[in-house]
């Protein structure tokens, strides 16, 4: 199988898996007072320090969560609630049109249930935000804005946002800035304090750690109202018995991903560039989506004119090639990607798109397998799509 869907999830690193298994054999609740509890607590706190050290945060700024979706919800809703509680006029959320659904749907929920209003920032044809748009938005509404949330790098088209510039604009107006950096950690340089963001989402399974564990980095002076109430284990912002084994493995993976980022990016970007070049040769009218330069090293995203992405996916899947069409609703029906639409693509182009994402286990053979199968799959998908015309 040629696994070209690392942005969905990537295999666990051996050292993370070993750390997980070793820790999972030990008993102990990190909140318990006895020796077993203290041992678990020590593993959690060492992990917190490792994560903080490589991501440019203080240990106290690391809040362990159940993953990216929880971290995004905690940041968006939690900061919104805390800021509005401090000043009722602050009920505006500023976000971008290309966010992951964990942010988009959390913002929509605030609009529907919490009387929030929202300012959507546009993107250009490459999916890039313009800090000047944020400046204009905040100049007009800063006193009413609860928070700004914009992703570090896009999960579909791989475009890396000018986060430091955006965070600086937010800071000028004293507005906390959250970024979903799930796709960026280990792929691009990320430093929490240097970037100037107030909150940052990271998850384990995109960088070689386990699924179901992640963190929200939350600056010490930023308040967030909890989503989950209970034992108050994480700074009283997040409750729930700590997943010691998951956290240990997560920290191992974060550390390895961040320390190996440059070498990884060089190797994977070379493979990715070869993939792009050969896809272009195989399908001359293909459209390469996203920013050619400011881009995640493992991401290649294309529109195949005259094809439906889900037909192409089926055909490639049958040849042992795993890729992705982008967003899907709960019934599994392919929806045109909101990211492509925000970048100005029409419905047909959005529906004709496929994402190939490389990762730490990717090899030249994976790219070769894709190139071997792609032309026939595109031909077939085009014939199938031609049937859509009303008869």
């Amino acid at each position, binding site marked *: 199988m040629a696994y070209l869907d690392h942005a969905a999830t990537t295999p666990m690193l051996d050292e993370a898996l070993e750390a997980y298994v070793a820790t999972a054999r030990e008993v102990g609740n990190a909140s318990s007072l006895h020796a077993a509890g203290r041992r678990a607590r020590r593993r959690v706190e060492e992990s917190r320090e490792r994560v903080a050290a490589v991501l440019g945060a203080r240990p106290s700024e690391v809040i362990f969560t159940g993953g990216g979706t929880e971290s995004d919800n905690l940041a968006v809703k939690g900061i919104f609630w805390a800021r509005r509680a401090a000043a009722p006029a602050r009920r505006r959320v500023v976000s971008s049109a290309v966010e992951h659904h964990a942010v988009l749907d959390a913002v929509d929920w605030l609009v529907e249930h919490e009387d929030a209003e929202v300012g959507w920032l546009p993107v250009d044809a490459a999916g890039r935000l313009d800090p000047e748009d944020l400046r204009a938005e905040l100049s007009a509404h800063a006193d009413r804005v609860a928070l700004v949330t914009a992703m570090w790098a896009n999960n579909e088209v791989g475009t890396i946002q000018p986060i430091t510039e955006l965070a600086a604009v937010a800071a000028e107006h004293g507005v906390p800035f959250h970024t979903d950096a799930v796709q960026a950690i280990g792929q691009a340089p990320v430093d929490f304090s240097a970037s100037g963001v107030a909150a940052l989402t990271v998850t384990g399974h995109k960088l070689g750690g386990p699924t179901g564990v992640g963190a929200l980095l939350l600056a010490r002076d930023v308040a967030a109202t909890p989503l989950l109430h209970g034992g108050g284990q994480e700074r009283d912002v997040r409750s729930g018995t700590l997943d010691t084994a998951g956290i240990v493995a997560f920290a191992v993976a974060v550390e390895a991903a961040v320390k190996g980022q440059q070498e990884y990016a060089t190797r994977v970007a070379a493979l990715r560039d070869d993939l792009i070049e050969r896809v272009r040769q195989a399908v001359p009218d293909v459209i390469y989506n996203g920013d050619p330069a400011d881009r995640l090293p493992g991401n290649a995203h294309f529109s195949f004119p005259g094809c439906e992405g*889900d037909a192409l996916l*089926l055909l490639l899947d*049958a040849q042992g090639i795993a890729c992705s069409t982008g967003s899907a609703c709960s019934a599994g029906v392919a929806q045109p990607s909101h990211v492509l639409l925000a970048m100005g693509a029409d419905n047909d182009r959005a529906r004709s798109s496929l994402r190939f994402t490389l990762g730490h286990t990717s090899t030249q053979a994976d790219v070769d397998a894709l190139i071997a199968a792609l032309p026939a799959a595109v031909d077939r998908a085009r014939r199938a799509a031609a049937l859509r015309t009303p008869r």
Partner: protein
Amino acid sequence: MRVLAAMSGGVDSAVAAARAVAAGHDVTGVHLALARNPQTYRTGARGCCTLEDSRDARRAADVIGIPFYVWDMADRFHEDVVDDFVAEYAAGRTPNPCLRCNEKIKFAAVLDRAVALGFDAVVTGHHARLGPDGLLRRSVDIAKDQSYVLAVLTREQLDRSIFPLGDSTKAQVRAEAAERGLAVADKPDSHDICFIADGDTRGFLAGRLGEAPGDVVDASTGTVVGSHSGAYAYTVGQRRGLHLDRPAADGRPRYVLSITPKTNTVTVGPAEALEVSEVRAVRPVWTGGARPDGPVECEVQLRAHGAVVPATVALDGDRLHAELRRPVRGVAAGQAVVAYRPDPAGDVVLGSATITG
């Protein structure tokens, strides 16, 4: 063969897909998303297009061990089945949406796409037999037989269809599902029309077509005996729900004899006035052998699960004419007349056409 199994989320299509695998085919499962908004269509375990059904189909595919995808056919379904359903009622006819779905969606849009993507055939869980002789026959389970709603399929469509369940009863299918570990083994059968959430066809039509009050006229006297809020809500042969203002002069029950959209009139009369001895139909399909030049002695069925009567059927261009050996009540325009040849190995579908009168 490389085959595509249409999986509704019910027990029949799950077992059909499993049998196709057992028969040695390379099977891919597909669930058809037919509702534009799943919430607006029938909910729970009774429909064919809810999120729950989609999950049930996916789970069955996982157990069987085949790839599974969801195909969005909502727009095609809406145009070719739902809009057609409404338009047919508005024209005073009584459509069969399952038949239309087979004709336009499952064995047309889906089959065409499957073939274009490199599949050789479509597998469904319909209860009907289709053997190596290419003839479509009734299921061994007469109570579950679905050959009537498949009779509209052409030779080309049948040649690319596989119905693995025709030799089994529904009870056998359920038992096999349980043996195979398919959780849908005990799932209730779907009934009625999948896109009408509460089973209230009249309410559904009223919502689409609006109120259109008019007269109910007695055929024997020509007098107005009641009123209705929309002629489209009536079906030939219907007795219940007429709400006549006064009893008929002869004191006998009244039935809907005809619907005239032009004058928005529902005509009622006694039961015997419903009796029909000949049926005219259009757009014939003939798959039970070569298209006949002369009259054919056979049996005909005039609605789903309706009685079967001996008849002489003749084709003339785009028309079909059936002389019935004994009169039949409640023949509605828009339904199909299906001709069968009695056969000990399962009655053979000869052909079908759409009834006009």
